[in-house]
């Protein structure tokens, strides 16, 4: 556990050594804020539902920007050899990096709290859906950061890590959109693995354990594959 925290702390600080963290956070807040508030006054409803509806797409785009560097860059610069020959388990490395990415994304999420508060000052807001929205977004972050870590573990450099993570994220994001054209059995399966269908409940104010389990399973699977990737690298 100590190892994981040591690595997570180092990586979290590392985000702020370069402009990456600042840029990602700023652009994330600007984009979500603009997309939300530009239609907010037209709809004229004191609800954050449209804000949370943006989250899957926003996080599919922004989380790879946070995770791409974490393992791919170590491999490219050779520092992976340094860390891989320390007395660490593969999962310490993966989980440490994962936690740092989650922490940064959660920071970004935290900075959206003023959005909710400002909406609350304008009208009467139902805090139930706001809470469920935040819980859902948190679950989404846990899943997408894990996918980003897996991509970064597989890729040889940051750019391919970014592209791979975007591809994986968009696949899971879009897969639910085409179910209409497909046979029922395949359609319902695709709907089940889609990031968006599981998010709908959260935006409506429902916290369903099934949805949470879905996101956590994605996170677990991706991280497990990440650990296997490191293991396989020793043998190749």
């Amino acid at each position, binding site marked *: 556990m100590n190892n994981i925290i040591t690595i997570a702390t*180092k990586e979290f600080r590392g985000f702020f050594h370069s402009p990456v963290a600042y840029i990602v956070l700023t652009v994330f807040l600007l984009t979500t804020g603009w997309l939300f508030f530009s239609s907010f006054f037209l709809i004229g409803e004191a609800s954050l539902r449209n804000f949370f509806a943006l989250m899957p797409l926003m996080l599919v785009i922004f989380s790879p920007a946070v995770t791409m560097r974490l393992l791919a860059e170590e491999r490219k610069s*050779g520092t992976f050899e*340094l860390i891989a*020959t320390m*007395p*660490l388990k593969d999962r310490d490395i993966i989980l440490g990096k994962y936690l740092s990415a989650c922490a940064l994304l959660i920071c970004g999420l935290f900075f959206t709290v003023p959005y909710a508060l400002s909406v609350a000052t304008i009208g009467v807001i139902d805090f139930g859906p706001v809470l469920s929205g935040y819980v859902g977004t948190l679950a989404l972050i846990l899943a997408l950061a894990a996918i980003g870590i897996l991509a970064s573990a597989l890729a040889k450099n940051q750019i391919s890590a970014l592209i791979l993570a975007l591809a994986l994220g968009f696949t899971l994001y879009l897969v639910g959109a085409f179910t209409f054209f497909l046979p029922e059995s395949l359609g319902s399966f695709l709907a089940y693995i889609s990031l968006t269908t599981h998010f709908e409940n959260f935006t409506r104010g429902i916290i369903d354990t099934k949805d949470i389990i879905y996101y956590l399973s994605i996170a677990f699977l991706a991280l497990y594959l990440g650990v296997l990737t490191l*293991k396989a690298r*020793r043998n*190749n």
Partner: protein
Amino acid sequence: MSEEMIAVENCSKKYGSFTALKDVSFKVKRGEIVGFLGPNGAGKTTTMKLITGFLAPSAGRVLVNGQEVTGESTATKALIGYLPENAPLYDEMMVDEFLDFAARLRHLSGPKAQKRKETVIKVCGIEGVLGKDIGTLSKGYRQRVGLAQAIIHDPPILILDEPTSGLDPNQIVDIRALIRKLGEEKTIILSTHILPEVEATCNRVIIINKGILVADDTPENLIEAQGSSGLLIALSAAGGSLPDKEKALKVLQSLNGILKVTPLRDEDNTSYFMVHSSQDVRPYLLKALIENDLYLMHLSLKQLSLEETFRHLTLDEKASKEENHE
């Protein structure tokens, strides 16, 4: 701790279809400083990566302090300090911050970590750069920070991949002195292609060529085994004409303690011979020559350096044989 700190047993390593290491075996005892020699791409770095557990062998096994290096192998990794080739370090971290990070990963904490950190900073001479970003350091300082990181947990085994590459001559002398000092109580494997470095720091040499271990001995023995000190002799007959080669050969071979006489070229009415012997033949040489009407035109002691030994061992067999006999 067992006397045998590292045992590499029949290790092979393949990268795809390329075989980087073929059936290499050797053992390193406690307190030895072993120099890994070999041309670029010979398999030195691969061997080191197997010992540090960064790569797993395709066949064979590696034991560190009696424990097999397998899988994540945290137990053996804890015994080793490793400086990879080119000292890869986190450029965006400050030196001080990086040493703290390394200490924590080595499970050092509190006053003990502080004490070890102060020691390695002093030993490696990096007091002046603690507040600098690693990315801004010169090659020499990077190498020292890499070394500091490798010894922060006071490991019984040190693996150093080209520790002096890219350093200026003064820094090289410093680092060598440091390695020798560390070697008094640690087992060290270092790789290099600077041969005088091995003669200066190591008490044992392992030469690897094309993935195969070709020599494993002390530097002195290796030079000796290659027929170290030969005498280069040039003879001519009375009147300054070319001597009878058969006769000259016989005379030389009749000397006490002769191992081998190799006729070389003929030039300017003199014949050159290379003489290898188990004892110095110079005291009896002149007398024997005079008795047989041979004139000595040239006599020099040819000391083979490790450099030549290395060339003999790592150039391909045929070429090295020709070089030996002609």
